[in-house]
């Protein structure tokens, strides 16, 4: 079972052109800003939308070649959308048993299977509730169970964990991880949660404005983001610039970043927020990057704080709460930011 798809179609304001490729057992994490075309891609894979051009091939079989398309019920696909879309007149159990029943499993075994799946999302005791009697998170869990109950060769999950509480989410995430490694199908997982993507996916695809802006393993993406959006997701400061042989990178806005690992030509440069130190006066000593910037925002996050800085370069710094207090950081204040040249990574654009 392998997936080879190129989805081209236009949808509302944007033209979507997304290629996906996966080997059996792989989990593809699809990320991207709202309205980028992630759901559109998923719907095309499921056969609910048809590709205008391109193709969807699973295991060599053409599900859609731009001219003829298999209807969804002839694709072995499992779908869970962000809206849980349970059948309102069926109980939770009947909802989950619907897939196996439709695929010819007898009533008894379908119900057993449904009970098993409901158990896995911890909802066995609500088996005979109707969707309207369930909370949103419970509904999402039933929808997930329903999508998993047909053992699809292509499992499409569109923000499956968004409505779950952290506890259930953690459990579902690890259960999902177990299930996904256990079965040979391919999973396409659309998510906004980097943690989901990083822990569940073998391969990440970033879709922005209908196009793939970056794809690769989580490690590749974490170390070398290639779009500002990806950088936000992985939590790095990212700059597009021109690098010279001395290790100077000049960004579009005129800022200069110095690195000890020079790359020449059009480059990306990254700085981890935790590598940024803040000072009230221009720091003396080793850091070769020092900029005078203005504090735009301070967000406390657990034991540390993220400080948004603007000026010649926009920089996000991550500092301890003590630093915030010690520096008396306030929005609008001028501070010096310093980064050691060894912390700056560059790679070709």
């Amino acid at each position, binding site marked *: 079972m392998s997936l080879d798809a190129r989805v081209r179609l236009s949808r509302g304001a944007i033209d979507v052109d997304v290629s996906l490729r996966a080997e059996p057992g792989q989990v593809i994490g699809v990320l991207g800003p709202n309205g980028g075309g992630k759901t559109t891609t998923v*719907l095309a894979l*499921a*056969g*609910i939308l048809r590709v205008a051009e391109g193709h969807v091939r699973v295991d060599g079989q053409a599900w859609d070649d731009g001219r003829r398309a298999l*209807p*969804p*019920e002839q*694709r072995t*696909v*499992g*779908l869970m*959308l962000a*809206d849980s*879309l349970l*059948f*309102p*007149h069926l109980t939770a159990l009947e909802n989950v048993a*619907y*897939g196996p029943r*439709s*695929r010819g499993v007898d009533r008894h075994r379908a119900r057993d299977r449904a009970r098993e799946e409901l158990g896995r999302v911890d909802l066995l005791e609500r088996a005979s509730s109707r969707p309207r009697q369930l909370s949103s998170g419970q509904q999402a869990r039933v929808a997930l169970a*329903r999508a998993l109950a*047909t053992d699809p060769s292509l499992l*499409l999950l569109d923000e499956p964990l968004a409505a779950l509480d952290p506890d259930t989410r953690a459990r579902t995430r690890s259960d999902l991880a177990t299930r996904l490694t256990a079965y040979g199908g391919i999973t396409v997982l659309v998510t906004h949660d980097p943690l989901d993507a990083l822990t569940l996916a073998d391969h990440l695809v970033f879709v922005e404005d209908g196009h793939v802006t970056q794809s690769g393993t989580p490690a590749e993406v974490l170390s070398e983001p290639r779009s500002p959006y990806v950088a936000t997701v992985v939590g790095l400061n990212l700059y597009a610039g021109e690098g010279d042989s001395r290790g100077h990178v000049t960004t579009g806005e005129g800022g200069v970043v110095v690195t000890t690992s020079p790359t020449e030509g059009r480059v990306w440069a990254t700085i981890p927020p935790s590598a940024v130190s803040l000072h009230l006066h221009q720091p003396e000593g080793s850091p070769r990057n020092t900029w005078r910037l203005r504090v735009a925002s301070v967000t406390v996050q657990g034991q540390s704080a993220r400080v948004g800085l603007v000026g010649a370069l926009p920089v996000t710094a991550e500092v301890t709460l003590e630093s915030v207090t010690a520096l008396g950081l306030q929005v609008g204040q001028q501070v010096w930011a310093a980064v050691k040249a060894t912390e700056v990574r560059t790679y070709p654009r």
Partner: protein
Amino acid sequence: MRYAGRWRTRLALGVPAGLALLLLVVPLAALLVRADWARIPADLATPTVLPALRLSLTTTSCTAALCLLLGTPLAWFLARSDHPATSWLRALLTVPLVLPPVVGGVALLMAWGRKGLLGQHLAPFGVQIPFTTVAVVLAETFVAMPYYVLAVEGAMRGLDARLESVARTLGAGELRYLRTVGIPLVLPGIASGLALAWARALGEFGATITFAGNFQGRTQTLPLLVYVELERDPQVAISISIMLLAVSVLVLGVLRGRWLR
């Protein structure tokens, strides 16, 4: 979730609703008030009443069944088509409502009669439709089915298309989706469509009399009997009408009360 309404709101909605109810209910009330209740039992004991009641109930049940079996698929096609011709087809379906019933009967004769468009091909096989109970059912179906189809189509258009998408990814073809999700979800629409169609069929008069004739026990339904009695003794006709009302209110009240909520 019900809210305590405000006075002004109650008034702004209650007054027109009350007027509507008045327009519909006052004539019925008048009929009941003016009826000669003492005579009703005797009037209903007339030997013609029971066969007509029986015939009315059988033929309208057949009509309801035809609507359900044939009308539901038609409604489905109409609901999911977005072809521009659909709205014309839908308009065409309302024609039997517009046609003066007698003309409707004439049209039915022209279609199914001995020399009719289809009837002339049936006659050689000894199949003769006019003047039979089948003709009553055909006439009732002709006038009643449009109500059913239009009501059900409306309900089907209201379905969330994404539920069908999900059902199909779960492996359900169109038929299975319809049977297990589509139809159960429009059941209220189907029930109200059936109620409309059944009631219309029960009251059907013009097309039946023209197409099926007026033969006791075979084609004389209650409305036909009412008409005939109107010539002879209007009081009897009113008594029978009141029974007709009672039957319909009873059937609809009981069935809908059971099926809906």
